[in-house]
């Protein structure tokens, strides 16, 4: 690429990024301005549409002095646990479905694919009935469980593992390595981007979740951030300042997580070396 091409490319990329970020920037601006100014500069466009004319942190302070702090903690805890457990479960299952030879492998794969076709909202009520029977309302377990059975993550990892050349494991087997060793020492290190992608799926599902946490855990100690934000709006009035302030924090945390994990998407050397 020439220097000019590089500059043009960088500018295009930056423009795309900023364009996507624009609505979230507006949320940020709305969180730190006085309530009466949130809708004041929508039309016609002015510099104040995207930059606060008067800045106030009063709403942010108000947000954190309430139950929101607990809600953010709940969201983070539940999401982290979901991702960790979910990854372990999905990676192992994806490995089994891509690599382990056994009868009914295709059938099991179909079953898992079907599972993520089922809209979660459609099974939320029956699932609640089942969980209630085990006393799982208003518990972290109740919040976490639906997030770890994610057929999409299994599907993704299975697709990825299919692409790893069989020569690698055949060589390992000749050396006497068992299935677990092959999984842990060969496949997993080669799959960092895929694992991160699967982690992303699990993360997004759980961080975003609204209906399930609402039904299973509305108690203040267990409420998650997405539900807490919705609380700022009821029949008698909506506090957009708090909604946007809450939205800002609910967005900045994934943003930081995502920026950090971006680095790990780079291809690993082993793969490019052995692909034929």
């Amino acid at each position, binding site marked *: 690429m020439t220097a000019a091409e590089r500059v043009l490319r960088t500018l295009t990329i930056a423009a795309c990024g900023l364009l996507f970020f624009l609505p979230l920037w507006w949320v940020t601006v709305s969180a730190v301005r006085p309530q009466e100014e949130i809708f004041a500069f929508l039309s016609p466009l002015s510099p104040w549409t995207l930059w606060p004319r008067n800045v106030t942190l009063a709403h942010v302070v108000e947000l954190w002095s309430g139950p929101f702090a607990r809600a953010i903690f709940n969201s983070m805890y539940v999401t982290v646990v979901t991702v960790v457990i979910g990854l372990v479960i999905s990676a192992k299952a994806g490995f089994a479905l891509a690599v382990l030879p056994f009868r009914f492998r295709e059938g099991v794969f179909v079953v898992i694919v079907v599972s993520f076709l089922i809209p979660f909202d459609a099974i939320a009520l029956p699932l609640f009935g089942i969980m209630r029977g085990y006393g799982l309302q208003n518990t972290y377990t109740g919040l976490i469980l639906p997030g770890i059975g994610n057929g999409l993550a299994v599907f993704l990892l299975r697709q990825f593992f299919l692409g790893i050349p069989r020569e690698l494991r055949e060589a390992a087997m000749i050396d006497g390595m068992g299935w677990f060793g092959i999984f842990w020492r060969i496949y997993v290190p080669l799959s960092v981007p895929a694992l991160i992608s699967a982690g992303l799926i699990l993360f997004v599902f759980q961080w975003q979740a609204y209906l399930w946490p609402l039904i299973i855990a509305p108690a203040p100690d267990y409420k998650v951030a997405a539900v807490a934000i919705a*609380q700022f709006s009821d029949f008698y*009035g909506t506090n957009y300042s708090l909604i946007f302030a809450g939205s800002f924090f609910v967005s900045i945390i994934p943003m930081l997580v995502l920026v950090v994990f971006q680095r790990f998407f780079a291809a690993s050397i082993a793969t490019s070396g052995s692909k034929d």
Partner: protein
Amino acid sequence: MTKPTLAGGAAIFGVVAATSLLLSAAAGAQTTINFLSAQNDDVFAPVIEAFEAANPEYRVVHQSVPFNDLNTAVESRVGSGDSSIDVYAADTPRVPAFASKGYLVNLDDEAEAIEAAVPNPVEIDLVSHDGSIFAYPMWTSSQLLYFNRELLDAAGIAYPDPAPEDRLTWEQLIADAEAAQAAGATWGFMFQQVDRYYQLQPLFESAGAGSGLTGDDLLEPALTGEKWIETAQWYGDLFESGLAPRGVTPAQTDDLFERGELAYFVGGPWALNRFNQVDGLDYGVAPMPYFEGGEPVTPTGAWALGINPHAANLEGARKFAAFATLTAEGSYLTTVNFALMPTNAEGFERYQGRLAEMTEKVGPVLDIMVYEMANTAVVRPRSVGYVAFETEMNQAFGDIRNGADAAEVLEQTENRLARLLARL
């Protein structure tokens, strides 16, 4: 080779379980009463505090869910026999449906006490079904006409008369709103709960078109009479002509008035707190308009407290609900951080002091509301099919507001409602 995996998995589960236990709230030695509502914690904090002080053997835990999702929460938990909710806030139009599904305890044994504390028969009607009382009446609502004095002055329009007997007609109001808009107001008029049946039912009642449901059980939709279509078209024309804005949701309507863009605004008294805090907003209140040749009608009804028949603590639940609604102190405390009116007669007396203070600045708020509640309030149809009805009506109003032909929309809605209500 497989053992490490199993052990690893078990260890992870163990850690999670232990942490969860540590982080869970420890159960106290008192009896816990679980209370579900759609309000923020600070609304009920004062009354909970007072109740716990007077009854130290009880502890009340308030769980709140967003208003739009309260029905889901009630259906999924109370509906499935969950004992983890003892008392919950029930929106009064839904009381018939809840009662008929067995989600509410029959309170006839306390009927005398309830009727003594809440003498207004309309409020008792709102918590009843099939002749029995099923919930403790807590709050009620009314509506006011707000107007921006500055925008009216700019157009040379006289302020609406605050006396209920001399209220504006809708025809007059629209003419004035158009004049205000011509003189510089961005918008002439707006409803607070735009597209919602609660807000718009009075239009149809005032025009003599009826509530939309007929029949013995109020399960037959009646939306295609001439008056219904005419009034609905009138509603749609408000937006078609540009007098009122499209695309603004009910949550965003207060903001229009606060920023001085709106000349006339029909909304509930809960907006008073917000408007009073805005610098430089010079506004007044008047009674809600009516259609010429028709009756003045205002909407009413709000929340009541219901008891879950499967509650773990029936006795405690009823004690708390009774304290919050049947005692003057409890009733008043529920309104300290919230702007709705208590149904308890004595609680209302304490409450009205705050409203009376506003008279000098904005007008006789208290007098208007007392008059409306006694004379013009009409309740939403007491039908077990109310939720389906309201959902479809809100949809229909939305379509009409966005320009669809009123007759067509109402006919489609009537057909659909007939099918839906037949399944109940």
